[in-house]
């Protein structure tokens, strides 16, 4: 408060007055929202409250907002900014839905009104609502397979709907004529206009009572106050850079959302470098949607009670490569971006934050958008699913999560209004991931059509179940059926009378490794199609319970290997001067086909196998175009080649090849001072492999940087030992008579072995940490 006191001039309102007015401004937004919900026609507004209302100051800064769903939070300021560019006059009301000019996706129509007082614009009021239909190819304007914006409906750039108090009737009639059920659309727009009227009336009454100066001061102070609180909340988060990746499913491909979250002091920087480019389909997001999803995640990890406005958003900077999935360029299709990609963006940002703060496992992460309609009706529904388990309790079942929070349509209301019958609406028991705390269960919803209609289904998390946390199991992915035949989750098609649509939504991830008493109870008696999943759940649970599900302990591996490394050294020292040549050869470090050489071979094979297992864990991870598993396979391959080399002494033998090339045994001088001919080629080979791989290895260890540095250290030790010391050794042998070779050999060979041991440790540790994150499923396989 001292900051505001310092700014307070003579006669300016005091902080308490400002707070009282700020509270009144929030009341105005809430009153607008209540009126809009209650007077509207679209199910999505009236039943599910998919709408928001807000007040902005005369410069377009967000002052107060009544939110019903989070995805609107960061997107409203863009709408007002787009309208400000059109030079609004007092009393004008603008309408827009263009996602690239202040909108989100086409069904969200935004009205921005310039509130007038004595001939001046004193503020802007905005309302955004999801209309049941805005034209386009499919009823409900949410096609699953659109590739351009035009297919999704009427695109309205910021346009005057009311000019100087007069409704632009011709314009309105024109846009309504291109939508289905224009009478209803008009009703919804009138409800939005009603909200604008209420805002103008209430704000003027407030100014009458408090004076313009006090209201202006409150409009300036409200964001400043939120900003101070947001700064304080961010400051309490641990500084650092956190990364994560998550995926959207496009047919058989995964689209990557890669995020880098940096907490620095009182600010947060979120960047999406490495995210897939914008796609042909409609999972693209305009930047406004991406920002909203980020703000949602930030509010979850900071203080949800901070009043949302320009100030609460200011300390959060969001950037994304232009032309990427999360910052699409027109005329990309965007219907699914707002509803599905927004969920995944929030998931990815929260996943990154999970490295800094304790967060629950992932929830369903989809809205399961279901649109059924023909020329006579439009039915749109989003279906809840399982919430991720929390550190202290089970996840909630059958609930909306993330960037949405819409209500369901009551079955009795639905069946009275539409030619549809609901046959089942129950929890999908056993779909939540197991763990110390279980993930929430998804929902099964079955609908039968009583008339032919078009179906649009837009759902995700059908391949990748929501991840568990802290060793908890992943939740079951969702599934979709038409007449009991499984169908793709992104689908637009015709349905006949009597056809049946069944949606099974994902369960939430579990939290913590399952113990015997938290393993899932036998799922409810077999409904068709559930046995397989149930069996899978039952199979992994006991294994996960027995071994913690995370494979061997990395420290144990390291200790064992280091002990063996040292043992090799000690045995060498003890036997190098043995009178028995057999004994000496058996343990000599510089001789092939003996104990140390076999040990080194086995050690490299072991490290290769561990790297291979990392590839299995990382099957679904992508590192900007390359699968993480590919990188692991490459690492594993290099180790296997090294093992073969060790066992068959390939590089030593290659020397003879090179000698042949030279025609004779070359002198050191001829070799440029290098002891062995292969060194040069070996070095070139090592650099050629290591440099490109370093880039991907760096990404693989995002969020686990210590492993990267440990692996780099292992590589360095190996190279220094294999090339440097060995070279030195040979050099000394040549030029210094009486040089005690044994000790150098000892250091060199043992260091090599230690380096491999270290690498093996990194692989095991990385895999364990990934398994913790992913849930115990693969851990079960490993333990078998």
């Amino acid at each position: 408060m001292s900051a505001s006191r310092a700014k307070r001039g003579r006669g300016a309102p005091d902080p308490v007055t400002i707070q009282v007015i700020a509270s009144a401004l929030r009341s105005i937004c809430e009153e607008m929202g209540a009126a809009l919900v209650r007077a509207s026609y679209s199910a999505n507004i009236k039943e599910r409250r998919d709408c928001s209302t807000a007040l902005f100051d005369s410069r377009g800064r967000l002052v107060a907002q009544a939110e019903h769903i989070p995805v609107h939070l960061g997107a409203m300021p863009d709408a007002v900014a787009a309208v400000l560019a059109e030079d609004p006059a007092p009393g004008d009301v603008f309408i827009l839905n263009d996602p690239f000019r202040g909108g989100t996706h086409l069904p969200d129509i935004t009205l921005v009104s310039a509130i007038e007082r004595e001939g001046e614009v004193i503020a802007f009021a905005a309302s955004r609502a999801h209309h049941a239909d805005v034209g386009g190819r499919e009823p409900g304007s949410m096609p699953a397979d659109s590739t351009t914006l035009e297919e999704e409906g009427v695109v309205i750039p910021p346009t005057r709907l009311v000019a100087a108090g007069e409704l632009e009737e011709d314009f309105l009639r024109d846009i309504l004529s291109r939508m289905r059920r224009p009478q209803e659309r008009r009703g919804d727009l009138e409800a939005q206009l009603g909200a604008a009227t209420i805002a103008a009336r209430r704000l003027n009454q407030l100014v009458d009572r408090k004076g313009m100066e006090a209201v202006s001061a409150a409009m300036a102070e409200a964001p400043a106050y939120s900003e101070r609180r947001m700064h304080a909340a961010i400051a309490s988060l641990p500084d650092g850079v956190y990364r994560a990746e998550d995926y959207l499913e496009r047919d058989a491909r995964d689209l990557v959302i890669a995020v880098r979250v940096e907490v620095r002091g009182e600010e947060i920087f979120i960047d999406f470098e490495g995210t897939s480019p914008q796609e042909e389909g409609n999972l693209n997001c305009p930047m406004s949607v991406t920002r909203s999803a980020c703000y949602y995640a930030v509010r979850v990890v900071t203080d949800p009670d901070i009043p949302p406005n320009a100030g609460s958003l200011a300390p959060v900077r969001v950037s994304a490569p232009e032309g990427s999935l999360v910052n699409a360029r027109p005329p990309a299709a965007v219907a699914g971006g707002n509803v599905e990609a927004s969920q995944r963006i929030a998931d990815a940002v929260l996943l990154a934050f999970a490295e800094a703060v304790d967060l629950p496992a992932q929830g369903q992460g989809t809205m399961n958008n279901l649109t059924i309609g023909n020329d006579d009706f439009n039915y749109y529904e989003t279906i809840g699913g399982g919430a991720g388990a929390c550190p202290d309790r089970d996840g909630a079942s059958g609930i909306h999560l993330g960037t949405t929070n819409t209500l369901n349509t009551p079955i009795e209301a639905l069946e009275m209004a539409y030619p549809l019958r609901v046959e089942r609406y129950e929890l999908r028991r056993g779909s939540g991931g197991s763990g110390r705390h279980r993930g929430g269960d998804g929902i099964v919803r079955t609908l039968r059509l009583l008339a032919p209609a078009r179906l649009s289904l837009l759902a995700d998390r059908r391949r990748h179940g929501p991840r568990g946390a802290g060793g908890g199991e992943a939740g079951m992915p969702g599934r979709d059926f038409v007449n009991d035949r499984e169908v793709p989750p992104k689908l637009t098609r015709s349905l006949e009378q009597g056809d049946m649509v069944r949606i099974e939504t994902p369960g939430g991830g579990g939290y913590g490794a399952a113990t015997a008493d938290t393993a899932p109870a036998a799922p409810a008696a077999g409904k068709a199609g559930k046995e397989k999943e149930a069996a899978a759940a039952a199979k992994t649970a006991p294994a996960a319970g027995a071994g913690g599900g995370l494979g061997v302990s990395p420290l144990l591996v390291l200790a064992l290997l280091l002990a063996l490394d040292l043992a090799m050294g000690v045995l060498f020292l003890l036997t190098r001067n043995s009178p028995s040549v057999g004994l000496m050869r058996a343990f000599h470090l510089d001789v092939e086909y003996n104990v140390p050489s076999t040990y080194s071979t086995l050690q490299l094979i072991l490290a290769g196998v561990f790297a291979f297992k990392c590839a299995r864990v990382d099957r679904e991870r992508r590192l900007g175009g390359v699968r993480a598993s590919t990188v692991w396979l490459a690492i594993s391959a290099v180790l296997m080649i090294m093992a073969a080399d060790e066992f068959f002494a390939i590089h030593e033998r290659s020397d003879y090849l090179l000698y042949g090339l030279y025609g004779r045994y070359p002198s050191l001088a001829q070799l440029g001072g290098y002891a062995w001919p292969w060194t040069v080629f070996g070095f070139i080979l090592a650099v050629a492999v290591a440099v490109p791989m370093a880039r991907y290895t760096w990404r693989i260890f995002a969020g686990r940087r210590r492993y990267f540095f440990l692996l780099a250290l292992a590589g360095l030790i190996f190279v220094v030992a294999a090339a440097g010391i060995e070279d030195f050794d040979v050099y000394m042998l040549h030029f210094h008579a009486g040089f005690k070779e044994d000790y150098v050999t000892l250091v060199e060979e043992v260091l090599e072995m230690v380096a491999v041991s270290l690498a093996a440790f990194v692989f095991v540790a990385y895999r364990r940490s990934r398994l913790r994150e992913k849930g115990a499923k693969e851990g079960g396989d490993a333990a078998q």
Partner: protein
Amino acid sequence: MAEARAVLGVDVGGTFTDAVLSVGGRFHRAKVPTAADQSQSVMAAAEQVIAAAGIEAAAVTYFAHGMTTATNALLERKGARTASLATSGFGDLLEIGRQDRPRLYDACPRKPPSLVPRELRFTVRERVGAGGVIEELTAAEAERVAAEVAAAAPAAVAVCLLFSFLQPEHERRLGEELRRRLPGVHVSLSSEVLPQFREYERFSTTAVDAYLTPVVARYLEALAEKAEAAGLPAPAIMQSSGGVLPLEKAAASAALLLLSGPAAGVVGAIHAASASGAGDLITFDMGGTSTDVSLVRGGEVSTTTGVNIGGCPVALPMVDIHTIGAGGGSIAWVDAGGALRVGPTSAGAEPGPACYGRGGEEPTVTDADICLGYLGEQLGGDGGMALDKVAAETAIDRLAAALDLSRDDTALGIRRVANANMVKAIKVISVERGHDPREFTLVAFGGAGPMHAAELAQELEIRRVLVPGSSGVLSALGMVVGDQRRDWVRTVLADCGWDEGLLEEVCEQMAARAHRELPGAELRFTADVRYQGQSHELGVELERPVKREQVEAALAAAHEQAYGFRMQSPPELVNIRLAAVRPGEAPAPAAEPAAGEEAAERRLACFDGEWLDIEVRRRGSIGADGVTGPLGIEEGEATTVVPPGWKARGDAAGNLWLERS
């Protein structure tokens, strides 16, 4: 004849149990601390007030009671072991709810625990649709499921089938089967509890009813026994709608009793105000930890059917009371943004505000009031609880240092922030429902209400504030004067449409039932209407015989008032509601005898940053001529603050009026 009547009302609150006894138009009051066993406190308060009136217990002709047993059992989830029975395929409706989460940004979204655990949810093969029966309930299936339910040995069963509001036959048959197999187990049928569409709200209400009824019935039986032993008549119970139910009805349907106490407060306020001729009221009951506000039009409580208690929607008519967690004990603090905040944390009764001297150190609204001179060093004047002004000042000073403000500015700030919270609450029930608060009288009661009322009125531009004569025991007064009331609802959307004949027939059936169950009652029909395509109904008066034009005109007017515009679409009639009301038993109260003039005390009090030397008078000394503010008026435990520019006057009904001069 009036001498023969002795009417007793007892209200159980969180801290105190209040009793009011009206004997021949004179009121007697008593207050005892609430014990763990509520029926004991009820009897203790009753005995005390009867002794005070100097009559025999047997002379009491009518006994009404309001209680918190139902609400507490629901909030603490201490109801009966309840099973549910739903249409096959819909067993989890109660847990799924409407799919939304209560708080948008919770890292760990939580749903309130379901009243029926998963293992007690049963389903039955049958299906009714909007057009009638789709799949018949067979006798074999009814027997099978009843046996299955019986095997789980529940203490109560909630039955809710799809579209049972249209076609209750299946539910009735299951009810019979269950009652036959489970004698003594309470069975709630959704078609009886709430025959209204929207399955989740109906199911939730039915489950609440099943869950609470065994607990409430046990309590009421114990109370009835004690009353009988003491020679009192069996108590009638205040229900959430503001009307009174006979004991047997109350013990059979606990969902009707959730707001028993607060509803009585509103009824008491209406009664007190009507004696002074005021009918359009905003009631403002500010206590230690919470504040209840409600809107009254033309002397009638406004009821709502959209109440959510303890995470369970209960769609029965209840007095529309908006509660916020702010009161005299609310603690003031500075948040991370440097703003002064008040509540929701409260110092409660223990340790209480700093000025109570019981170890509380945090500054509260009451501490601000004492620092500003609104409260004297004794609560309610001589004989009241002593207040420690120094402790209050110390607490406020600590906060003042953190805010870099003076003590006076800090104390004034606390009051204004607290008042802003109250203003917001009042706007929710007035402005947001389309009512202009300036047309209403603010009725202030509760420990802290009269101290804040004038300032709230100023902020809301309300011109008149009424402080009822018995503001301390207004709820108990409400019991005594409460009407007998029953409510019924029928969803007619699907099967009547606008057929005036059919609608009239429904009204006739409902009226016949009302005459049977509450003979001599006055009947009031209302209709829930909306425009086709909308989802939220508005309640309007329904005149008989039913005429479409009348309903349409009423809807247009209500829509205009609530949302600012009219629609062109055709209207739909969704529900018909009937409230049957039979006037209460108590006569109107006589005016309190005036205590006569007495020496006024003087005190320094701070208004708008200025310290003024004000007079503090006893309530009884304020006559009809009125006294101009600034002024303090003390009575019982409540102090009324009359700021400068306001005038206080007493009236013939014993109420105190504050008016802007």
